[in-house]
């Protein structure tokens, strides 16, 4: 599904966000990436759909090379990749269903979407996507009138409307309260299991990572320093990724028993 070879990203200005990352993710996996802010998590996700171009290396998604791809190729690759954002990135002044329809952009002719004349089939697909995240009754409500959790569900529906084979979630719960966070993570997990969509999620709460991930990837200063089954992850692993002792701030710690508080 995903194969990264020796991928590096240097931003204009000289910041090295990723350094020589090798990674492969198989069909249907649920992968969580953890690391401190600035460790390169967001960059890693954006390299996958070409929103951030890799400076060097090779990024192959679904059999297509993304690095150096033409605009048309990039659009084709992106059409198969759903993306969810920390701040939801909804258009606040329009309806929920119009936001979800953005997920159909790659399938609808440019003039139709520009004029807002969405074909009936695409409107239906948008409603089905909303149904899947349980807020279809909000379809004609303005996006700004929804709560944070509902807005993120619209974000998920927008990604689902693409009928993607890969789902990228960039800190999807960082702007949400603990209870809503678990609901949204649950949605992502359910979608992964029911639809078999490969999912890559950035998180900074370690207990959430432990609870939802199948496989954990640790980034530190742009270097991939951990990659393994979640069952084998212990507090020492997290300390190594974070480069310091784990504190209460690193945990969401609500609901079930918090991931073994490490006493030191």
């Amino acid at each position: 599904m995903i194969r990264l070879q020796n991928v590096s990203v240097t931003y204009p200005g000289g910041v090295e966000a990723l350094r020589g990352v090798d990674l492969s993710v198989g069909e249907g996996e649920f992968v969580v990436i953890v690391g401190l802010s600035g460790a390169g998590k967001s960059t890693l996700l954006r390299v996958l759909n070409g929103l951030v171009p890799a400076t060097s290396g090779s990024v192959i998604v679904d059999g297509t090379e993304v690095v150096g791809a033409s605009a048309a190729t990039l659009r084709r690759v992106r059409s198969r990749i759903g993306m969810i954002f920390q701040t939801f990135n909804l258009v606040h002044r329009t309806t929920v269903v119009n936001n979800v329809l953005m997920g159909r952009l790659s399938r609808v002719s440019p003039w139709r979407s520009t004029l807002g004349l969405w074909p009936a089939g695409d409107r239906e697909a948008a409603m089905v996507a909303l149904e899947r995240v349980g807020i279809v009754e909000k379809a004609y409500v303005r996006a700004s009138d929804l709560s944070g959790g509902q807005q993120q569900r619209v974000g998920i529906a927008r990604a689902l409307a693409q009928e993607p084979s890969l789902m990228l979630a960039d800190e999807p719960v960082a702007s949400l309260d603990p209870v809503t966070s678990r609901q949204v993570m649950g949605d992502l997990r359910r979608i992964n299991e029911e639809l078999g969509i490969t999912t890559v999620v950035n998180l900074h709460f370690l207990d959430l990572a432990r609870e939802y991930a199948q496989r954990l990837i640790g980034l530190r200063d742009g270097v991939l320093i951990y990659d393994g089954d979640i069952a084998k992850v212990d507090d020492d692993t997290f300390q190594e990724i974070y480069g310091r002792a784990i504190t209460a701030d690193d945990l969401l710690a609500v609901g079930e028993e918090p991931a073994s508080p490490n006493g030191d």
Partner: protein
Amino acid sequence: MTTSASAWPTRPQIRVRTYGITLALVAFTVFAARKVGFSPSTFWEVWSNPLWEKFWPIPWEWVLDGDNVIKPLIETFQIAVLSTIVGCSLALPISFAMSPLTTPNQPTYLVSRAVMNVVRAVPDLFWAKLLVTAIGIGAFAGTWALSVFSLAIMVKLFSETIDNADSGPLEAARAAGGRHTPVVRTGVFPGVFPAYVSYALYVFELNIRASVVLGLVGAGGIGRVLEAQRQFFKFDRILGILVLIFVVVWVVDHVSVALRKRLV
């Protein structure tokens, strides 16, 4: 200089400069007033001029007789409406091309900026004179001149609004694999549309007033009547015309302000 106070940061010294700037502004105002011979006494001299007595009484039967004032006033209104529509329609795509956030590519960005800078550099009265010379005296020239004027203002206001638009939805639309125009249309346009309508109404207000002025140089409408009456020293009629213009401007301003309040 006792205890810990010595460790506090010193307050930044901005006072001297502030006084300096204020003093310079006052000095310049006095200098400019001397240079152009302005003084409060000249103001009173103007008011005691016998010319003012010729403004009274207003010959209402002439002023309200359809062809004299009402018809040209309607023409002024039509010029304002038409030029607002033409100018603002042209401004829509140009504004998106001129904003770094939404421009399709660098050449389009640079060319549209350069062209609009040239258009703005030419004063609107000069545009009117130029067009009157080119296409003849009348409302047609006035409409064109005001369209250019509307375009210049609208592009300035609206492109700056686009610059400050939320880039989040734009990123989401791009990530979904859309082409440039639909991405901008769905990701940015709904957020800035209310501002667009609000500016268009504001431009219309300006156009109503500007179309009176443009009439003075032969671009049709009520301004032409105003100029003709001035040449024949019919100051009582002029006052009547000004009263009617005042009524129109007042009504348009109030309707426009009321509409704009509901938009933002």
